[in-house]
């Protein structure tokens, strides 16, 4: 799969994002790393131009509640309903439901093993083959656990 790993907002912590990017590469994916300080509009434009099937957004600065829903809305507005959105970083438990509600399909917090995002994307692939909802605009409440 072509996967965009994005750093949104002003958060400069990129170690986790880069580790995940490398892990996904080792899992056979083509990973486009956006670099730091991308706006939601830029992230969506990148996912669109790169024809990405999935976008992983990394945020550790607390701005997730604002940035992630915006990214999800912009993806849908661009007609990119089928893109799978997943999130990594520091997301308090109390904020997670809201993110799932926006169309996020997985949240990988601290302690996530390297293999988890790979298995998640495998699942996404299988579900896509079976025409089951995986995208940010597909609705339904399937999420990774």
């Amino acid at each position, binding site marked *: 799969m072509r996967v965009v790993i994005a750093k949104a907002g002003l958060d400069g912590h990129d170690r986790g994002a880069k580790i995940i990017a*490398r892990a996904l590469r*080792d899992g056979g994916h*083509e990973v486009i*790393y956006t*670099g730091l300080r991308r706006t939601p509009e830029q992230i969506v434009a*990148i996912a669109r131009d790169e*024809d990405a099937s999935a976008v992983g957004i990394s945020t550790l600065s607390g701005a997730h509640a604002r940035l992630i829903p915006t990214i999800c809305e912009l993806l849908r507005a661009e007609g990119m309903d089928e893109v799978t959105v997943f999130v990594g970083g520091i997301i308090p438990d109390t904020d997670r439901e809201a993110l799932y509600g926006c169309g996020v399909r997985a949240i990988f917090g601290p302690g996530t093993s390297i293999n988890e995002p790979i298995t998640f994307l495998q699942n996404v692939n299988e579900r896509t083959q079976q025409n089951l909802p995986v995208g940010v605009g597909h609705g339904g409440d399937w999420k990774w656990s």
Partner: protein
Amino acid sequence: MELNSIFSLFANAKHGDRRSLAKLLTKIENGEEIDIPTTKAAWVLGVTGPPGAGKSTLIDRLASYWSENRQRVAILAVDPSSPISGGALLGDRARMVHSNPAQVFFRSISARGNHGGIPNGLEDMIQTLSELGWDRIIIETVGVGQGEFAVISVADRILLVDGPDRGDVLQAEKAGILEIADLIACNKSDLPGSLAAMKSIEDGLSYSENPPPVIGVSSLTGDGIENLIHRIETMEPDLGKSTARAKISLECSMISRIRKSPLYDDVVNDISKNKITSKEGAERLEEYYGRL
């Protein structure tokens, strides 16, 4: 109604729909045949050089300048893939900070195992972009030896980017690309040692008949960029291809062709299991082509 055929994607892309363009390029990359009209000659700049020289940052500057001057710029950045997993970390995009994404189209491409050969569909992608009205197409590849010079086959203008902080400027000399480039940008002119690096490159070229000009730039400060652009714009494209480039182009095409052979995987397997030597493997492939 989902209009996903190559034909309708092309039509939509022609009307400016980026998503259609992106999907069209995916189809081409995945091997779908496309019948592109050839009404326009593509303007293609190949940018190569060792890792860390600052190619991506420099391309960001070039693209930014051109797009400010109302040129539509498309960048295809090719990165190597993992020979083991087949995956790729495509990080060139991260350097695009100055250029405006509305004017500049950037696509990251994995070599998909095609080191030394031309990435599948690259030529079709270039022709497609050209037909869709992109004025300047930049192909970025890493050049670390003879293996990564496929860019030479698809570009008519070659820019080599080198710099002072790699320890051994002679690497570029050894690879032979110095003489094949049309222009050499010695990047990082803001760093100490850059003048020495420029001199070293110029010295390495001093015995060639027609050495490419060496231009000092700093993609960090923007110094020298306008001069570089002027040189790029005014140089004669090597459309006919000199002998040296012709050789490289041919070899890249041969490599790509060999990899597409139906025998390829079996031969590789036999070599890896020590059943045959690589020489015998090459002979087997040659026989196959001889019998065609």
